[in-house]
């Protein structure tokens, strides 16, 4: 889960990383008050989309009046599909230099990775590899101060700035561990009047670890429908085609989309009904697919833990309650296959054995393909 900038900065500050003074505001009046204390100030929309500045989500104010004016412009605005409900009023800083530092997980090494560069700022993705310092941390032993100093030195820094950056790197790693982060990124980390300050920060918390971090405000991501399906507990992504898809297991769901596309079809969604879905969630998932009003529905199940009879019963349940008003193609093999096929047959639904045949059929009944 991504944290809003103000929360991310709050976490950095708790761990002793310098951040500009700031205050979260919900109304133009609050912003006017805040700007009286923090001036000159940047008024920043709190939404989780990149490129806020360019889209008009960051404006500057020196007086309460200016604060009120820019706040009324930003609050309520639609920023790339998100309505701005809160702004962060933050002291504007004079930037002398911009650095980049982050802590993340290196999936290949299976260790935390610190990345740092003296060439920071928004263009970091274009910085050449040779200007990016990468060091792994042995999580069993943690971050040592020598390692942090090493990284700062390798960035090409010296003197007091090097010392400050080294301390920040050490604390960055503390944040990474303490907050169960997938990513902590300070970009840019700036030098302003001799002080190194985190000017912008990103903190993504591992969803799987949220049980250890209660009380965080939930940030809704994705479309309304995606959020609704997420509440059922299923992985779901909307796509722009018109064949609704359900499969079990993420890999299988991806392969199913690939197969449809291979035969010229256009999948409407990615839906992983889970490796061991029982009747009820499967029926709910089917209900969602029906509600999408697709041209066809393709169910592709290879029963492992998932039992084919459970899937068949879920389909029958939906057919009897809400009806399935579009062509349905089912591919069903694996555990309790015969039971599942029989249940469907009694309802007049045929099931395929071969994935390729079933995918072709789904594309054909949707009126697509070559």
């Amino acid at each position: 889960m991504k944290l809003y900038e103000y929360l991310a900065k709050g976490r950095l500050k708790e761990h002793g990383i310098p951040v500009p003074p700031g205050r979260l505001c919900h109304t133009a009046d609050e912003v006017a008050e805040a700007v009286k204390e923090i001036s000159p100030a940047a008024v920043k929309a709190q939404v989780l989309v990149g490129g806020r500045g360019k889209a008009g989500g960051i404006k500057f104010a020196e007086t309460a009046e200016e604060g009120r004016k820019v706040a009324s412009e930003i609050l309520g605005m639609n920023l790339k599909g998100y309505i701005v409900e809160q702004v962060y009023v933050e002291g504007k800083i004079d930037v002398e230099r911009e650095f980049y530092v982050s802590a993340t997980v290196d999936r290949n090494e299976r260790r935390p990775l610190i990345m740092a560069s003296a060439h920071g700022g928004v263009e970091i993705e274009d910085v050449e590899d040779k200007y990016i310092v990468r060091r792994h941390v042995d999580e069993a032993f943690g971050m040592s101060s020598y390692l942090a100093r090493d990284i700062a030195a390798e960035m090409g820094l010296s003197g007091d700035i090097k010392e400050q950056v080294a301390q920040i790197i050490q604390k960055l790693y503390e944040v990474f561990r303490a907050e169960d982060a997938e990513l902590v990124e300070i970009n840019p980390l700036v030098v302003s009047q001799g002080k190194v300050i985190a000017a912008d920060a990103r903190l993504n918390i591992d969803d799987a670890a949220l049980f250890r971090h209660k009380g965080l405000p939930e940030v809704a991501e994705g479309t309304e429908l995606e959020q609704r399906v997420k509440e059922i507990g299923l992985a779901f992504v909307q796509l722009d085609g018109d064949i609704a898809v359900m499969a079990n297991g993420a890999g299988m769901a991806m392969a199913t989309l690939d197969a449809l596309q291979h035969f010229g079809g256009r999948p409407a969604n990615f839906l992983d009904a889970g490796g061991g879905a029982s009747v009820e969630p499967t029926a709910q998932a089917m209900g969602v697919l029906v509600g999408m009003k697709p041209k066809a529905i393709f169910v592709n199940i290879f029963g492992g833990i998932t039992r084919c009879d459970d899937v068949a019963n879920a389909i029958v349940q939906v057919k009897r309650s809400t009806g399935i008003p579009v062509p349905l193609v089912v591919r069903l093999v694996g555990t309790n296959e015969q039971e599942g096929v029989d249940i469907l047959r009694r309802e007049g639904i045929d099931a395929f054995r071969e994935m390729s045949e079933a995918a072709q059929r789904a594309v054909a009944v949707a009126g697509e393909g070559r």
Partner: protein
Amino acid sequence: MAIIIGDETRVVVQGMTGNQGSFHTGQMLAYGTKVVAGTSPSKAGQEHQGLPVFASVREAVQERGANASIIFVPAAGAKDAAFEALDAGCKVVVMIPEHVPVQDSILIVEYARFKGAVLIGPNTFGLISPGKSKMGIMPNHIYKPGPVGLVARSGTLSYEIAAALSDAGLGQTTAVGMGGDPVVGQVFNDVLHLFERDAETKACVLVGEIGGSAEEEAAEFIKTMTKPVVAYLAGRAAPAGKRMGHAGAIIERGRGTLESKRLALEAAGATVVEMPWEVAPAVKKLLG
């Protein structure tokens, strides 16, 4: 031969008395896996599925000679369970749970390295050496003994491919689930090393996915392999994966896409097929 598990594997099931643990203990026993004990702190001293339930893995090792553990405890307790198994001397630890915090997984991987144990998962379907032993939740009937080494990220997709291989008369030495999480014990590279050394494995199948760069890493090793490798990569039509700020983009630097994986694998000499049902015919062709 097979890799990682075989006739000598003696399994303790951590969390044996829960729903999943209980069901899959039965399935493993039915397959012929030498399951020797289970653990459950609250049900120690009882019998379950005809096996003794101990309070700790250490007792299962001492009293029943367990040398491998499969973990079915909830994600929040998975790290502790894994440490317990590694500490008790289990040389193979299979972690079924999904949603294990990644920082826990990093520590588990480190500890497994330190103990010289093979860690499979978390978020894996496990592994199976057909005809010998299985530690996992895969269906029993789709595998056959034979010459193909199979390694996959994803469960159901690998079942699909294993079943197609078996139907084509291409049995497997071992099928290994790498696990779907960002941080897992054994990656493609590690498993391919084992298959390369295994005398009975004549060809390898790699079932990869978009995201991460384990496939690209594997390609580096495939260059040096003497055995043919067939790869299927899922995710051609999939939505772009979760992009982790700039850091993700910098780490991968253009890797992690399906195209980069395909190019890397092909350059290494692997046969990359487009659809899952093309895997078995491709293996058949390579084995002649």
